[in-house]
């Protein structure tokens, strides 16, 4: 633009008139502050729709748990709470490293941020690996719903159908959660590269911040899934 904008006229000394463009400032924003606020707010709206997305299946889960309490309890006994407990710790630790990565980016600590992102990725992949191991065990026991479901509850045969329903919810809920983790892991790989390259600093850290919001949200889903799927009395 050849002419100075009205904004420049009203705020001499601001923005492009005197300071060169920040390389990551997009053209339709006035300044990095506006860009930061837009992207974090956008991520919060995204998280809001994720809450309703997972909320829908939590509602369906609750309906059937109220309908079939005994089958739910029987189904949960096929979960190894020790593995779930260990995995919960792994995931919460990854949330800590993610939070520290944001903290590092805010302070322009390039190596620290990158290290924390790598640790987050490592812990996330550990979680996925453990989950895959659990899935393999369940499938082995014939607990995968549908035609592969060969399990019969010998003590209470009438619960078999309910256990299948429980396992169905188990697989859908943890599966969608794992899918979100995998997407997050893909993003992390990209962010590790960007962080190492030195893209982030005191003025421009919003990508790491919104990555963090996403990762923490996925963590929160698990915080509810763990007691609801592993710890039914």
């Amino acid at each position: 633009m050849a002419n100075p904008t009205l904004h420049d006229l009203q705020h001499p000394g601001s923005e492009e008139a005197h300071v060169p463009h920040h390389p990551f400032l997009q053209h339709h924003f006035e300044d990095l502050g506006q860009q930061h606020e837009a992207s974090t707010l956008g991520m919060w709206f995204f998280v809001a729709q994720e809450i309703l997305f997972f909320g829908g299946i939590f509602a369906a889960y609750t309906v059937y748990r109220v309908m079939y309490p005994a089958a739910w309890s029987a189904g949960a006994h096929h979960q190894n709470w020790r593995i779930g407990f260990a995995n919960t710790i792994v995931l919460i630790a990854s949330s800590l490293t993610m939070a520290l990565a944001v903290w590092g980016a805010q302070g322009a600590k390039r190596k620290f941020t990158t290290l924390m992102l790598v640790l987050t990725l490592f812990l996330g992949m550990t979680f996925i690996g453990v989950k895959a191991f659990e899935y393999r065990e369940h499938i082995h026991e014939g607990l995968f719903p549908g035609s592969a479901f060969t399990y019969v509850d010998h003590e209470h045969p009438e619960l078999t159908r309910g256990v299948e329903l429980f396992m169905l919810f188990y697989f859908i809920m943890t599966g969608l959660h794992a899918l979100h983790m995998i997407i997050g892991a893909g993003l992390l790989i990209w962010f590790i590269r960007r962080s190492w390259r030195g893209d982030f600093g005191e003025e421009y850290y919003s990508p790491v911040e919104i990555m963090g919001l996403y990762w923490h949200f996925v963590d929160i889903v698990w915080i509810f899934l763990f007691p609801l799927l592993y710890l039914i009395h």
Partner: protein
Amino acid sequence: MTTTTIDDAPFIEPSATAPRNYLNDEYGVLSWLLTRDHKRIAVLYAISVTVFFMVGGIIAFMMRLELLTPEGDLFTSDTYNKLFTLHGIVMIFFFLIPAIPAVLGNFILPIMLGAKDLAFPKINLLSWYIYMIGGSFGIYVIITGGVDTGWTFYTPFSTQYSNTHVFAVTLGAFITGFSSILTGLNFLVTIHRMRAPGLTWFRLPLFVWSMYATSVVIMLATPVLAITLVLLMVERTLHVGIFDPALGGDPVLYQHMFWFYSHPAVYIMILPGMAVISECVAAFTRKKIFGYKFVAFSSLAIAFLGFLVWAHHLFVAGISIYSAMVFSFLSMIVAVPSAIKVFNWTATMYRASVSWQTPMLYVLGFIGLFTIGGVTGLFLAALGIDVHVHDSYFVVAHFHYIMVGGTIMAYLAGIHYWWPKITGRMYPEWWARLSALLVFVGFNLTFFPQFLVGYVGMPRRYHAYAPEFQVLNVLSTAGATILAAGYLLPMIYLFWSLKFGRKAGTNPWGAVGLEWATSSPPPKENFHETPVVTWEAYDYPAFLKAMRETQHG
């Protein structure tokens, strides 16, 4: 190259540079397919939703032809099942929901805010591609043999018994949902964070308020549909019993979750229509909208209350009678904010010198038809009457009065109102008025008989019917013919006007609003200078005074 006349812009200096605009800024197919300009994306959407509207319209016309006679003579009952299913899916998911937000909202909203673009231009383009991917599943299903579940995909028929393409079409609806989520997200952030200096919340045009309410509904309802369709697809693939009572599931849960989205989806369709109506009423009465704040907050009230009424679709599905009473009461409450809007628009028109251009004709049509649709909605909210007319043509007529008489009327009003801004050309006024008349007459002739025939007991979704219903059905089909002519006319003359229409100039209506302060078509960055807003929305008294002074001074 088209040139635009730069004339009576009241507060923006004419640009000294060549009159380049968003249409001639770049050339080539790729410059459209990879564009991040919200205006070009709006044009892409306009073309795509028009195609889907034609597909859905042709299917509707085939149904009306079948219903001309009581016997099922044109199609078998199976084919007819597929026709009404595809008509519903195409019209709702691929036309009505994206139509006004993604076309008019995309184009006008950032300009109304004085912004250069939406907050996330790449996501905006992405949402069009997602929409097209979802839409191509719809087209694929139509070509390969259709789907026969009804647009609601009720279980367990859709998961266990139907042998049509249920999976593909639900996947298409699931994918398209993300397109509208991303559009809603983009609008919300843009409204919050991209307003021009001085543009406070109560200076916003009511279009923006309504789009805001729409986006809230999209963001909070669509994900629940997404998870519901995931459950449906899982059940259909694995043959397990989430919703199948034979396998321990509860089919009513599917209906609860489906309508938690799909009732608010009605407000996703009608709120943007109300957005357009508010703009047109102000522009063609040259007055401030009566009770601005009431109209603004009634949009938010509709957005919230619209979430509390869904189970009125389940009154005969076996839900608890106590729950049904609560939902019946709440469904009547939601009529209040809608009525507030109607009263305020009419109060604005009271003792105004109204100019009867085409958009205003559509507005009048909207107000009348929406009121009929709304009042019959109250009938249906009442438990006893709903049990009587449930799944009859009375229901069909009711929701067509809202969706066609409301949303499509408003969409046509908006298209005509902003056509000069979008293309830089005027549409031919005489032809446009004729088409508005045809649409109004054709619409009423199509759907009013359906109220009558439904009330005396003709059920929906059958290709054959008892002979005593024939007279009213013939009237309805005759109306559909007129309606089709009314819809075809604009497609022809709007296309014609692209080349032969009169040049529009910056502000052909003499309307206030930021979109009328920039040239037609707008430049790529919308404004040559970021505008500073010092006036309230629809400040016609001040605007007209300023105009007079400019002319005399």
